């Protein structure tokens, strides 16, 4: 049981690392990298959730091979394809957010000349 938890724990560990980077880093780009790590960790976790071990044999990827046997084999041994579909969407969402945040960072650089958040403290939360 515990051994099977290791991948999940590692995914959550990456989540924590990403959080740390967002919270503790002064450089905007590093914050963005932290954000990416966070997204990847969440996606990874979701994919891991889909893993299942079949009754016999090794688990296979959910790719349909030709023929009727292929379908039966798929149903019996494939890992859950739904989380994989979900993370495709999620990766695309992450892409858009990344594009936007990098654009913001570029604009901020144009305004301030630096990526350092300490020097940008215009706004007081």
């Amino acid at each position: 049981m515990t051994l099977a938890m290791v991948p999940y724990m590692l995914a959550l560990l990456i989540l924590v690392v990403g959080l740390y980077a967002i919270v503790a880093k002064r450089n905007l780009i590093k914050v963005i990298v932290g954000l990416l790590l966070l997204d990847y960790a969440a996606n990874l976790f979701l994919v891991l959730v889909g893993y299942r071990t079949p009754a016999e044999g090794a688990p296979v990827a959910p790719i349909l091979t030709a023929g009727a046997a292929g379908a039966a084999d798929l149903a019996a041994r494939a890992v859950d394809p739904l989380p994989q579909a979900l993370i495709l969407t999620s990766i695309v969402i992450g892409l858009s957010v990344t594009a936007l945040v990098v654009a913001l960072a570029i604009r901020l650089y144009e305004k301030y000349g630096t990526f350092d958040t300490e020097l940008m403290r215009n706004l007081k939360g």
Partner: protein
Amino acid sequence: MDQVVPLLVAIPLAGGFLIPVIGRLTKSHRATAILPILMACGVLVIAVLLLARPDETVVYWMGGWTFPIGISLVADGLSKLVVLVIAVISVLTLLFSLEYMTHYTSPGLYYGLFMLMLAGMIGVVISGDIFNIFVFLEIAGIASYALVAYGTESDELEASFKYLVLSAIASAFILVGVAFVYNVTGQLNWAKIAEVIRTGGGLTVPLYVAAAFFIMGFGLKAAVVPFHAWLPDAHPSAPAPISAMLSGVLIKACGVYVLCRLAFSVLGNHQTFGTVLVVLGTLSMVLGALMAVGQGDLKRLLAYSSISQVGYVVAAVGAGLVGLALAKDSKPLAVASEFAVFGGLFHLMNHAVFKSLLFLCSGSIEQATGTRQLDRLSGLGRRMPVTGWSLRVGALAISGVPPFGGFWSKLIIIVALAQLAALAHWAFYIPAALAVATAVVTLVYYAKVQRLVLGGEPSDAAQGAREVPAAMCVASVVLAVLCLASALVILPSVRSRLVDPAVRVLSAAAGPAAEPGIAARSAPLARRRWPRKKGRLHETGLVHRVHVRLVAALDVDAGRGRRLRRRGRGAAGGDAAVAHLSGRPAQGARPAACVLVSGLHPVLPVLLRAGEPGRRLPRAAPRHAHPAGHREGPDRTDERDGQDVSRELHHPDARHPDGGHRRAGPLHPLDQRGGRGGRRALGSDREAVRETAEEGFRVTTFLLIGAVVLLLSAFLCLYRIGRGPTAPDRTVAIDILGTLIVGFCCIMALWTGQDFYMNIAIAWALLSFIGTIALAKYLEGRYYDE
């Protein structure tokens, strides 16, 4: 009818793609604005159509693929209400932006992003699928990040960056929560998840973790207090119509609505979830209001006020959730809980209306005068009559002045909280009292806004102010009228069409108790529960009955609830008391009130005998004459859960209540000898008398030492009073001496067992404080050169 539902999302989504194209083709602001306004009106029409049959739940399966692989769009009572709110606000905001955005460039992009945000929000609200909610949430979110940064000034970019980062963290948490839920249930459809959870036996640990992630994620979207840091920067930086949308609908559609869904429908009514919501909501209420008072920037003040008002909504909804969780067969409690939920939803509607009105007015003011700083604005009331009156109406409405709608919704929330306090748990008085106090504070800062902005002589900035163009005025006026008209929602005819279906949806989902849970699975964790401090309360009659009821209603955590539920499974139904108490095991966040109550539990019975002063320790009460002597063994403590259960199940009669003092049912938490403190404080055992004698001695020695230490410290203070070269030195020493005396009074109180000394302590602390302040002020006023 169900073919219409996807149009709610499809129309704005299409707009999101078409409008930037149109924006490129034409240079005119107003021309690009026509299509979005039409689309928003279309959405509004559909929303109103859906409301024609408010109780009907409309389900649309995308692409015709039904369960189990299909994705559904569901429009039930709650969704229809929120969609209506979104539609109305967006139409009026678009009308406002017709004129306001002429000061910005790229109208095509603006309206395109606006439509995307609208599509996202509506999608969140009508989605029937938990991952779909995430997707639409992101659509709305990305559009809102770009819109907050729309002006591309440095402030706005920074605010948008901060908002984006925090919101992305929240989204990642939500995704992890979705992963947990999928892991446990294997479903993504709301309704199916709810079903699986209910039949599968309540919440397990992964679901608790998922709930925690969801609270963090959606709490951030809703800007409840620990997660509110992005809002005071993001909302002021956005263009005014976007601020109105963000504050008015986005935080509610993305945050509060989803929390309601999760809490009531999906995860099952759960006391812990509700209590967490109440606590967070109350915190938001108070902190938002307090932080708003000191703001100098109009829009920032409004942003903090949003946090406060959303706190009202969340607290009310959470209170309703707790009430519904506790109210298994108690009709008044169920009614009170529904009332609380109604108040929360009503306030949600109201706040959308008046907050967007206030933000639109602030936009008008900013356009007319060029500034948002309160200290540079004054005397606008005469220059801008329409905006001025709209601002007044909005401020009065949000402060809760009758006859505007805000008064009614706040009143309902406060009354519902008070009712829940009376019926369910006294701790609800705290949010009720804080709600009243916050309403007063809200009135204060809005009165300040009105006075500063509208009264007096026109300031420099206001010299050139003229009334804003017609479109903006119309939007403001319509919203102001709505502020007044929303008071009509309390009328039964209006209410039954608008809000009651939503309340029914939520409380029906929350209604019947879920299966007694995962007690077995969570047993190991439960063993480390808060120790049950029980002793015997052998008072007979009324006091006992009251105490029993008090304890039963209050004790929401662990062993007791879980144990009772196990008994409930053993005893074949008809066990009213068990059913009444079968709450959820309270893991994770524990309400402060319960901590306090549990901690004071040993003293609760004594509390009920509070008329007897001057007793040092509770006297050993006579052993309770229990029929047929099935007293458990003296070593029956919390650790022996398993044994307890088996004993209970095997001897159902053993827990038979004695006489009419206890409720029907094998309860009795009071019968069991509890943990450590309980035995001591309520010592009613044979050994207790001897124990107390020994304890008394130990206590006295300790207290003696304590008194000596305090005297020594007092002498040091006296030394300083004598020696202190300057008057402030002496003042410090006097202050310290005063505080020491408070400690000394405590020692005396413990020594003699009379709480009279505590009265002295409190009074002395007060006097000492006042005296010290007086001395300090005196010092300040004079000088000396020692």
